[in-house]
C-alpha cells in the first residue's frame, strides 16, 4: 500500500488541468465529428478555472482539495458535462480522509465511487460510447492495484483508461444520432473517454511514470 500527500495530489490535478487545456484542439476535433463540438471548449473552460484556483490556493486536506476541484468544474463548465465531470471528483468524497495524505486504497475507492455516481446520475453504463468507457476500466485498475505503490497504481489506471478510450472507437453511439452520423462515429473515440485518459496520464506522469 502506498500514500499520496496533499501537495502531490494538488500537483496531479494541476498537471491534469494543464494537459486538458493543451489537448483542447484534439478534443474539439473529435467532438465536432461525433458530438455537438463543444466538449473541448467546455473542458478547457472548466480546467482553466481549476488551474487558476489551484494557483491561488494551497490545500492542507485532501478532501477539501477534491471538493474544490469538483465545484470549480460544476461552476465553470455548467450544463451536463460540468455535472458529469464534477461528479467524477465529488461522488466518492466520503471515501477520503480529512487529512494531509490519502492511501492508495482510499484513492481507489474514491475514484471508484465517483464512477458509480456517474452511472447512477447519468443513467448510463460503460459500453455506450461515453466517458465511462475509459473511466470504468481505470477505476477497476485502481482497485486491482490498490495494494501497490501509488505510481504503479496510477500507471495501471492510465493504461486501462487509454485502452478503454481506444476501444470506444468501435462502439456505436446509443441514441439520437442519424445513421450517417453513427457511421462517422465509428473509428473515432468518445471525446469524454479521451479526456479521462488524458487526466489519468497526467496523474501518472506526476508520480514519475
Amino acid at each position, binding site marked *: 500500500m502506498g500514500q499520496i500527500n496533499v501537495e502531490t495530489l494538488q500537483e496531479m490535478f494541476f498537471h491534469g488541468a494543464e494537459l486538458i487545456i493543451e489537448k483542447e484542439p484534439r478534443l474539439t476535433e473529435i467532438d465536432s465529428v461525433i458530438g455537438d463540438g463543444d466538449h473541448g471548449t467546455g473542458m478547457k473552460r472548466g480546467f482553466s478555472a481549476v488551474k487558476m484556483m489551484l494557483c491561488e490556493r494551497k490545500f492542507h486536506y485532501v478532501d477539501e482539495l477534491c*471538493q474544490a476541484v469538483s*465545484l470549480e468544474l*460544476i*461552476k*465553470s463548465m*455548467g*450544463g*451536463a458535462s*460540468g*455535472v*458529469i465531470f*464534477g*461528479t467524477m471528483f*465529488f*461522488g466518492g*468524497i466520503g471515501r477520503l480522509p480529512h487529512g494531509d495524505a490519502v492511501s492508495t486504497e482510499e484513492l481507489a475507492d474514491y475514484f471508484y465511487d465517483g464512477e458509480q*455516481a456517474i452511472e447512477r*446520475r*447519468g443513467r448510463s453504463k460503460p459500453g455506450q460510447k461515453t466517458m465511462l468507457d475509459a473511466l470504468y476500466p481505470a477505476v477497476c485498475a485502481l482497485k486491482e492495484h490498490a495494494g501497490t505503490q501509488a505510481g504503479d497504481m496510477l500507471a495501471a489506471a492510465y493504461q486501462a483508461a487509454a485502452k478503454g478510450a481506444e476501444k470506444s472507437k468501435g462502439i456505436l453511439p446509443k441514441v439520437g444520432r442519424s445513421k450517417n452520423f453513427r457511421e462517422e462515429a465509428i473509428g473515432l473515440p468518445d471525446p469524454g473517454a479521451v479526456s479521462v485518459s488524458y487526466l489519468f496520464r497526467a496523474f501518472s506522469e506526476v508520480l514519475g511514470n
Partner: protein
Amino acid sequence: MWIWNSEETALREALEGILYAEPGIYEKLDTKYGCGLFRKHLPEDQVRVIVDGGGGYGPMWAGFARQGLADAAVHGEFNCAPNAYVLYEMAKTIDAGKGVLFLCNHFMGDYLNNDMALELLAHEGIRARACYISDDVCSCIGEEKESRGGLHGIAQVAKLASAAAGRGDSLEQVWRLAKKGNERLRSVTMKVEEEGKLLVGPGFSGEPPVESVPFESADQLVSLAVDRLLAELEPYGPKEVFLCVNRLRRMCFTEGFVVLRAAVRRLQKKGIAVCGSSVGTYFDVFDSNGCMISLLAVDEEMKACLGKASGYDFTV
C-alpha cells in the same frame, strides 16, 4: 426580431427590470455562474420551494417566485438548465432549517443539475429533495410517465407544494404531495400554424408532432386535446380536474378564454367536474398561435391546496 440589447445580457436585464417593477418584494442572488430571485421576509420554520429551469420563456421561472407558487426561482441561460452551483447557493441562502424542495421540468440538463445540487447540499447537511415534472403526454411516447418532459403543468405542482409548505408540512410531506400532483398531471401542446395546420404535441427542440390535422375551430382543438389528456388520466378515474390553459406567444386574451370555455364545456360533457381553471401566458416558448392545455386529476387532499396564485401579470 427581439427587442433587447444583447442576447447575452437579456435575462439578467429582465431580472433587474422585475426588481424595478416590484421594489421591496425580491432579493437577487447574483453569482458569476447565474442568478435568481428569492422573496424577502419569508416565514420562519417552513420548507422552502424553489422552481428552476431554462431561462427566457415567460413568467416561468422568474415570475414564479410569488406567494402561493414558490419562494425562489433560478433560471439558466436561454434553453439551458441552471447551474447546479447556483441552485445549491440559492438553497443555502433561503433554507430555514426545514429543508428545500426543487421543482423543475424533466429534461436531462435540469435533472442533472438539480440532482447534483441535492448531493452538494447533502454534503453540507442541508436537507433537500427534487420533484421532476413530466406532464407532456407527447414526449417519450411508449416510455413510462416518469421519462417524459415537462410543460406548464408545473405551476399546479408549485401551488400544491407551496400550500403544503405554508401550513408547516415536513419536507417529506411536501415532496410526497408534489410527486402525487405530478403523477396525476397531464399536458399537451396544440400549435396552430399560419397555413391552418393544427399540430398536436410538437416538441420545442424540433421534435415532430404526434398528429397533424387541418385546423377547424377552437372546439375542435380543445376536443382533441382534452380527450387525449383524459385517456391518459383514465387509470385515476378522474371525477374532478383543475384546468390550466397556457397561451402560446401569439394567442390573444380573447382566444385564451374561448379555449378555456370550450375546455370546461368538453369536460362537463364527459361528466367531469372542473374544480378550478386558469388561462394566461406562463410559458411562451413557441412563437406561434396555439396553446398548451393541462389537466390535474384532483382528490380532496389536492383540492385543499389548490388556490389561485398571482404573479405580476398572470393568475394561475
